[in-house]
């Protein structure tokens, strides 16, 4: 590992350092050399047209099988993220809020989330929570996020509306207290009111030691979670990087220019 010391900037060590990341799905190259550095406390937005590789990036970072990294590296808090199993990444603080959270029949939210929280506690060498302790925490967080307590008793994501699912993802994020939060098109399928509720609860989790990667198609979620950096992902590469104004500009101009560039 190479370390660069800079006396002028004294920036904190990156939370996430992606360099020259290439990845394939079913033998087809989707990511074609991504470079991205997220430092603690920063919020980065990745925007781009459909099929640019946005979800692939989130899956590669979370460690989904079938997404093969062919080149490049990812350091997470100085460790080789790609060498870790999916659950180890989660236990070390990588959280992915899913675009389409899956249903798990017969497994109550309480049971699922208690198992998850305790897996993470165990990994960190902390004491596990018993059912009562967990319920106390879960109820408090649910109340804070405006999630109906009843949802915890229902089977995971079963029969939830689109809005409920996303709120449930936000609740999980709050309970698992991650360091790197990846939002994969969390705004999709949400009406304006639901979007505000979910986005605000995510924004409330911003802290100096956390990083946030917001993957989105539209600018509007960024009204609530104001990014430090905005990247345009097109055809598997970062085509442009700017500040929050870039997102507003894209809202006006669209992605056509980048699609043309890629082709």
């Amino acid at each position: 590992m190479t370390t660069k010391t800079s006396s002028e900037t004294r920036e904190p060590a990156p939370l996430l350092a992606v360099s020259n990341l290439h990845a394939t799905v079913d033998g087809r190259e989707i990511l074609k050399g991504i470079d991205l550095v997220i430092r603690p406390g920063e919020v980065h937005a990745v925007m781009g047209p459909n099929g640019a590789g946005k979800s692939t990036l989130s899956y590669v970072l979370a460690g989904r099988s079938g997404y093969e990294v062919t080149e490049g590296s990812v350091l997470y808090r100085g460790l080789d993220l790609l060498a870790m199993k999916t659950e180890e990444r989660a236990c070390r603080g990588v959280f992915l809020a899913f675009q389409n959270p899956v249903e798990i029949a017969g497994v109550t939210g309480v049971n699922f989330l208690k198992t998850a929280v305790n897996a993470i506690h165990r990994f960190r060498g902390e004491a596990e929570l018993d059912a009562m302790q967990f319920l106390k925490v879960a109820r408090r967080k649910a109340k804070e996020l405006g999630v109906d307590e009843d949802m915890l008793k229902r089977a995971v994501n079963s029969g939830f509306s689109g809005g409920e699912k996303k709120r449930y993802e936000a609740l999980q994020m709050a309970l698992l207290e991650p360091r790197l939060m990846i939002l994969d098109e969390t705004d999709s399928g949400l009406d304006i009111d639901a979007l505000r509720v979910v986005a605000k609860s995510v924004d409330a989790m911003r802290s100096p030691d956390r990083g946030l990667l917001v993957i989105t198609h539209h600018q509007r979620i960024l009204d609530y979670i104001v990014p430090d950096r905005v990247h345009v992902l097109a055809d598997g590469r970062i085509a442009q990087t700017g500040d929050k104004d870039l997102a507003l500009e894209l809202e006006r101009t669209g992605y056509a220019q980048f699609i043309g560039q890629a082709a």
Partner: protein
Amino acid sequence: MNAGVEQVRSLADQKYKYGFVTDIESEVAPKGLSEETVRFISAKKDEPEWLLAWRLKAYRAWLKETEPNWARLHHPPIDYQDAYYYSAPKKKDGPKSLDEVDPKLLETYAKLGVPLHERAILAGVAVDAVFDSVSVATTFKGKLEEYGIIFTSISEAVKKHPDLVRLYLGSVVPYSDNYFATLNSAVFTDGSFVYVPPGVRCPMELSTYFRINAEKTGQFERTLIIADKGSYVSYLEGCTAPMRDENQLHAAVVELVALDDAEIKYSTVQNWYPGDEQGRGGIYNFVTKRGACRGRASHISWTQVETGSAITWKYPSCILQGDDSVGEFYSVAITNNYQQADTGTKMIHIGRNTRSRIVSKGISAGHADNTYRGLVKVMPKADGARNHTQCDSLLIGNQCGAHTTPYIESRNPSARIEHEASTSKISEDQLFYARQRGLSEEEAVSLIVNGFCREVLQQLPMEFAVEAQKLVAISLEGSVG
């Protein structure tokens, strides 16, 4: 190494934690099966003449029968002469109280998590423990006697309550019923006997624990439970055996009788040794369980969690004779590696407005085969009979099989019979979702499978439901990845 791997390892280590052997001196019958063997067993138990005659009738009938071959099961022929039919820990007389029981035996049961002493008192569970062929001890006898409840070994019941035994033994499963039940009738060694008098609600869970210890020994226990008018009893059986390369035979018979307005809840957590990963060894479990809802509005409910045995052949059934009677069957059958299960139920509707409900959850992993086989039969006089069957199969991996074979016979046009079935696989999406939240693959599978079985596990008495959930996880160890 990360914690996830450690977790998996510790699961693997406790995979079959009941595989030990207790070094205890046993008294055995000469090897093999003959009329002499039957007489030996009967004499050992100091049985009355009528019972010996009944055994001999069964033995002679058995000689003329052949093993059934309609189940989806494959095994080499069983050599019935290469087994012992009676094995008992050596002891002068039957123990009079727990203090007289060999400490080694008590130790064994403590290891198995069957608390015969204080822990039993705390748990409020009365336990009858059967070690190879004899009943070792029955706890809480005194307290139950206050209610007039008889909970004892069947050998003792033959001596002390011969009228009850004679009236009901073989009345639900006749000695000529089927090959294995007939064999059991000839050579059964021990088992439990329960009688709950009219109007009594049994104040605690009754429980039997079966353990095969001796080598080359078959276990043939016989259980008889009678719930008199308006009474209620909940009964649980658990089973384990040492790990051995040979196959051992277990051919039990359970008979339940529920009179008017009586209810019997019978739960089983079957964890006989399933054999190793290559399919060597394990118990052959050929069991006949049947309940008769004889009285009006009587109710019999079977709940089974079947995770063990190399072969499971078992169809806990209900004969719904009394009008308005209810039969239920809730089943989880898990097969991994080379295990085979052919299990299900029979619901025979005879009385009017009889109802039955079947919920079967089959889980298959490794190279295992899992078959649900169930019969719903409605007789001509069963006006208004209703049945609902739900049959779900879950596959893990692509080397295993799940089969559903329902038989429906209705001879009454007013009957309503519904059958729902589904087959699914654990999806990659679900596994990824759970692992992204920090669960190891094993934990994720266990959680998803437990969710799949929830409806059935909920039927178990609280203290056993937790055990059963853990057992589900352990049984599937090594089935993914």
